[in-house]
């Protein structure tokens, strides 16, 4: 090469580029004091840049950032965290919890198997209990209707059966909603004042 290196060629060498294009550049530098100096000056600038310190913001910087960041926890992550929170951290307690769960599981399985083997007896007893419960509830509701609306209403209620119960429940629910709505309206009006 019969000329000195161009600034861009110096930069090519500074960038550490390799290849057949840089070979003649390197060869020239080896034999040219002026270009060696130019390359050294370039290296010195790069060295100074690479040794510049990273400057630090104030100590409260990350707290100020976090005060404005919205941390949103997806529901499945919250559920997993809640479940993880139920697991004891202490090893002995973990073993005790697992043993307890295993025992409860085994007992439940045994009871289920026993019940399945005696399904007809279980169904008979369940039906008997249900009938008893229904009769008691009907009697209770009828005496409540009788005490409010008189004996005639109580008799009519007993005769109506499930439909009567449904109507009574609907009437009670309606009264509850009305009461709730009234209280809300009154509260809203008093707040507006």
């Amino acid at each position, binding site marked *: 090469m019969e000329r000195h290196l161009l600034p861009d060629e110096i930069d090519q060498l500074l960038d550490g580029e390799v290849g057949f294009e840089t070979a003649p550049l390197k060869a020239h530098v080896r034999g040219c004091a002026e270009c060696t100096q130019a390359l050294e000056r370039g290296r010195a600038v790069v060295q*100074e840049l690479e040794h510049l310190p990273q*400057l630090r913001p104030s100590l409260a910087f990350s707290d100020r950032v976090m005060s404005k960041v919205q941390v949103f926890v997806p529901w499945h992550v919250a559920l997993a965290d809640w479940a993880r929170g139920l697991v004891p951290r202490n090893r002995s307690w973990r073993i005790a919890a697992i043993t307890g769960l295993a025992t409860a599981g085994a007992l439940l399985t045994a009871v289920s198997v026993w019940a399945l083997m005696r399904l007809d007896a279980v169904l008979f007893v369940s039906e008997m209990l249900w009938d008893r419960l229904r009769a008691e509830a009907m009697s209770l509701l009828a005496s409540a209707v009788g005490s409010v609306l008189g004996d005639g209403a109580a008799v009519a209620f007993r005769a109506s059966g499930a439909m009567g119960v449904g109507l009574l429940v609907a009437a009670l629910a309606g009264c509850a909603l009305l009461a709730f709505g009234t209280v809300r309206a009154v509260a809203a009006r008093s707040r507006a004042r």
Partner: protein
Amino acid sequence: MPAPPHLDLVNLPDADLAALARAGRESAFRELVRRYERPVFSLIFRMVRDRETSEDLAQETFIKVLNHIDRYRPEFKFSSWLFKIANNLTIDHLRKRQLKTISIDGSPHAATAAEVEASTFDVEARGESALEEMQSRELGSAIEKAIAKLRPEYRACILLRHVEDRSYEEIAATLDLPLGTVKTYIHRARHELRDALASLRE
């Protein structure tokens, strides 16, 4: 909601931290801030050269990134995305600052002598505040002064290349510039720095 205790956040790659942050782990957010607060602040401070403004811009950068962490795509580097936003906010600020430059000879819209006097900017020597003194110390070296004289585009490229050790390709992706333009900016920045330092030493 804290991260599970067995996780060592300090050694996790950025993409994994970002995934934990998306899952609502506050500690992951904090680790991302801790990891990048110095590089982001350094880049902005050397561009803007005002500590208070730099902290505001750095804060805004992190808030923007972390509040939109769901937009981060793991196939790209998290740091590139962060630096891109930092650079965009800084360039916008520098442009607004340029538009607000006050004439030291008074407002061109002043009609009377009283209005000219009211809008004239008095340039007088004044003592440095503690903050300014700290800034002078931090950015007072010859190389820092030379960097301050570079055009903002050259400054961003040279700082990302040699202070943050980013490759040319990463810088091009971060600043949305063609690769050739990034190389040109860096080469020109080096030349200007070489000349500035040489004249200071003479």
